[in-house]
């Protein structure tokens, strides 16, 4: 079975803190993705990576950065967390047609 794991299920941070969300996949997939999901707005792509050290902006990259030093690991970084970044964050990985998601991280910024 494909497995995508995320470092935390729930996270509470204060405004201005630097936040790291980590994602690991065990299927040697080239492509990895970070989304956020908000009620009424659906899934929105933040960043994605198609190879180690390669990254591309998605639809809403502002306020975020990413790192992919190893093929299996893709990290999302909130440089200075703000309350409007409170959301459900979903990591996914894909090779060819099938994309698999992790369980999600519910981030609350207070």
């Amino acid at each position, binding site marked *: 079975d494909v497995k995508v794991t995320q470092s935390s299920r729930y996270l509470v941070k204060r405004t201005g803190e630097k936040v790291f969300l980590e994602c690991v996949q065990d299927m040697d997939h080239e492509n990895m*993705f970070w989304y956020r999901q908000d009620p009424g707005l659906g899934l929105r792509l933040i960043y994605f990576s*198609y190879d180690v050290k390669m990254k591309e902006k998605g639809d809403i990259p502002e306020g975020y950065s990413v790192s992919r030093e190893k093929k299996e690991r893709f990290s999302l970084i909130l440089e200075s967390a703000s309350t409007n970044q409170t959301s459900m964050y979903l990591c996914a990985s894909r090779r060819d047609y099938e994309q698999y998601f992790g369980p999600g991280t519910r981030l609350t910024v207070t």
Partner: protein
Amino acid sequence: TQLLEQSPQFLSIQEGENLTVYCNSSSVFSSLQWYRQEPGEGPVLLVTVVTGGEVKKLKRLTFQFGDARKDSSLHITAAQPGDTGLYLCAGRAGSARQLTFGSGTQLTVLP
């Protein structure tokens, strides 16, 4: 920009009823996936269809990809409360790296 429109947005039915969810676009997709998501969890992949006209069955769920690969449907027979969830379709246009997601159908099956 490719768009995927899902309908209906919300659906509430009684246990045992049948239902169909639609996913439509004006764009052609090389593949299309359906996911189910439960509250507080990540979406779980149900099926991938890649050939125009393809029909796949997963127990009481039947998935169809349109002949022109612009639309898809999900039919559930004799729905059960365990089918409750958010159903998402997602398509890949050509060799695009990212998927295009529909806005989702929130299904509630009442016992």
